[in-house]
């Protein structure tokens, strides 16, 4: 088990290095640099800026210097937000995104799991069709439309929640719903499918034959193995949900990490773009590792330590 985790952690490191190197090449081959502004800079000033931000060396040397800095957990200065290092920006924005993401995840699970169970237990009935119809709609509806609808209804029509910002629980409600509902829809569909598969198994029939009630069979026996598809979906999904959403953060003016993914590229803020990609990659890789470990807990037939590393 320990060996498995260690080997996997090495793979995580390798993945991060590959992704960062690829991103370095991509971001540096973009036309337009961090110092291109509506007011063009004099060549003298451009050279001073390049020197100040260590962008005047040959690209290969810059890459090596960047890697050696990253190895010391220094992600460099932001080229746009001059008061902060990338590490500071990530440290400031990741918790904001993670808090919002956790709430959204709670919404997703609290809505998605019961909805999936309900649909599975009433398979073929109008309840099933209604739940799955809603789930399909939830998946199809882009979250900016959902966010807009929520603002229209709960900010302007019924003035129940503030329009933007972060810091209070009330400000978290709408963005959590906007971010969580599409995931709830996916979870509902996956859980329903998982349950239906499991409910057809022989051992479930045995449980029923023992005289257990429908609910006891569903939650007590079928739910755990039926969670497998949900869990494998949640691994990467949690990484995405925790590291922030461009759209939801923008609509609700939340200072999370999501907007950095897109804005840093548009701003040619090389260090910030690489920094957020690196954090995201590490998150995805680590959560996938957690998912693999969770498999063993959910289904005793899967032996983690024997799995290929």
């Amino acid at each position, binding site marked *: 088990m320990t060996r498995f985790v260690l080997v996997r952690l090495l793979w995580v490191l390798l993945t991060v290095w590959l992704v960062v190197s690829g991103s370095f090449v991509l971001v540096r081959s973009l*036309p337009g640099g961090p110092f291109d502004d*509506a007011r063009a800079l004099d060549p003298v000033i451009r050279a001073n800026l390049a020197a100040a931000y260590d962008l005047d060396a040959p690209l290969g040397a810059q890459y090596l210097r960047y890697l050696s800095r990253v190895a010391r957990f220094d992600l460099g200065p932001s080229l746009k937000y001059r008061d*902060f290092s990338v590490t500071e920006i990530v440290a400031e924005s990741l918790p904001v995104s993670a*808090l919002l993401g956790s*709430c959204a995840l709670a919404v997703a699970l609290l809505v998605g799991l019961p909805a999936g169970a309900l649909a599975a237990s009433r398979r073929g009935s109008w309840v099933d069709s209604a739940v799955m119809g809603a789930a399909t709609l939830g998946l199809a509806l882009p979250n900016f439309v959902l966010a807009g609808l929520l*603002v229209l209804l709960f900010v302007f029509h019924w003035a129940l929640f503030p329009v933007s*910002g972060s810091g209070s629980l009330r400000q978290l409600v709408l963005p959590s719903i906007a971010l969580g509902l599409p995931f709830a829809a996916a979870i509902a569909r996956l859980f329903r499918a998982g349950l239906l598969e499991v409910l057809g198994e022989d051992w479930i029939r045995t449980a029923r034959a023992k005289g257990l009630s429908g609910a006891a069979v569903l939650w007590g026996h079928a739910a755990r193995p039926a969670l497998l598809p949900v869990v494998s979906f949640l691994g990467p999904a949690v990484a995405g949900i925790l590291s922030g959403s461009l759209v939801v953060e*923008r609509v609700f003016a939340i200072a999370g990490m999501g907007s950095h993914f897109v804005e840093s590229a*548009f701003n040619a803020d090389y260090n910030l773009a690489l920094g957020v990609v690196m954090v995201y990659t590490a998150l995805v890789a680590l959560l996938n590792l957690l998912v693999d470990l969770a498999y063993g807990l959910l289904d005793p037939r899967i032996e983690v330590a024997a799995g290929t590393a």
Partner: protein
Amino acid sequence: MRRDRVRLLGAAALAAVAALGAVALGSRSLTARADFAFCNQQEIQSLDPAVTSGVPEARILTALYEGLVRADPRTGAPIPGMAESWSVSADGLTWTFALRGDSRWTNGDPVTARDFEYSFRRVLDPRTAAPYADSLWCLRGAQAFSAGTGGAEALGLRAPDDRTLVLELERPTPQLPALLLLAPLLPVHRGCVETWGREWIRPEHIVTNGPFRLVERRVRDRLRLARHEGYWGAADVALATIDAYAADGITTQLNMYLTGQVDWMVKPPTSLYASVLARPDAIRGPQAGATFLRFNTTRAPFDDPRVRRALALALDREALARDIMRGGELPATSFVPAGLGGYVPATLAPADADAARALLAQAGYPGGAGFPEFELLYPHNESTRDFCEAVAAQWRDRLGLRPRLVNQAWKVYLDSTRQLAYDASWGAWTADYLDATSFLDCFKSGVGNNRTGWSSARYDALLVQASGQQDPLARAALLAQAEAVLLDELPIAPVYQRICLNLVSGRVQGFHDNVLDLHPLRDLSISP
């Protein structure tokens, strides 16, 4: 056993979420609404004036710091700030500023001429890498110092005593007071900068000299400012507290304004002009800014002035401003907008499709025949797209040309135009300071803002001549002659004058429309 572990895992996850929530909420102290709150568009680049270059930055920095001059809230013109008065020598080369003796930094130190001597030198220092360093290159020895080829001791910058600052210039610069309004030239506190290094802009360290001081900074959320009692004009500052919100989304900004979370928002979405412009709280007026089409004069057929003239003459500027922009933009009659000090702009020839066709035929393309297909480049955005589509349609319908629209992300567009990798492009310029040179300097030979490859010895000579001219009227006349050269050769075809548009709550007083769109926070108040 295993199920217990699942439960344990679930419980641990829930606890982690709860703890995270508590930490995140606890670390963000909740403050009551400030006297005045506004949307400052985006998170500012820095609280260090020297390294900034943008408008949202200037809004905050001019509240935290005050330069030698400050902006008149009605006109945007320079009026006495930390300098009570100033005088200029007969040759226009020596400027002497007399500082007030009664203003203090937030740490209690008096503001002196040495603070400005230090701050200006710091802006010019190559190690500071200030994007606006060149706005002080009129000082003797300044350009060499910025380039690292000259020493600080050769700078035309002296503080003979605490209340006198002397600037010695390389060449006469009558627009110097207007230039000194630029946010990057605001003073910083030497002791603070040198003690804390990179950390000096942290709220717990920062020392400022303006009408407000920094209370709290939540990155990409808000800045809280409070009145600074040591400021010389504190008695005139009505607002005790201000919140400046950073919100990227323009619709979000509008929502914040409409729900009363903020009292002021800049530039509501153009797609909502129909409903926004009719509102009584929409404050609107012409801006010292021009939108134009740019031609790459290094590429055929745009190297032929007749072609450029034909393309300019074919544009129905009236229709483009009225039907496409729809915000009250004024069709251009010149490149430099009217209303900049005493400047009277040169005149752009009125639209004339027949004359345009005749010129095009003269250039060898009768009815557009033989004119190569070309690209019209614009930065990606809805409003520039609509505008360029309309322009392309006019060129197609009136001249028989085949323009193809190409869009690029903002920085890529800037790079393409800088490298002259385009045929024709959308272009815009907004004045940095209240003087015609803020526009005309863009088209000097070889400067970065030129972006057209155009160069005219006569144009350059007229600008040099104007800068040596002490008499304001004669100077304005020379500048207008230079503009006439530009409007004759037309490396750019001006289309319309941009507008300032602000939504300002009825309870705010002292908010005036002006061409620089400057609204000093020190002069705002809230009606009881």
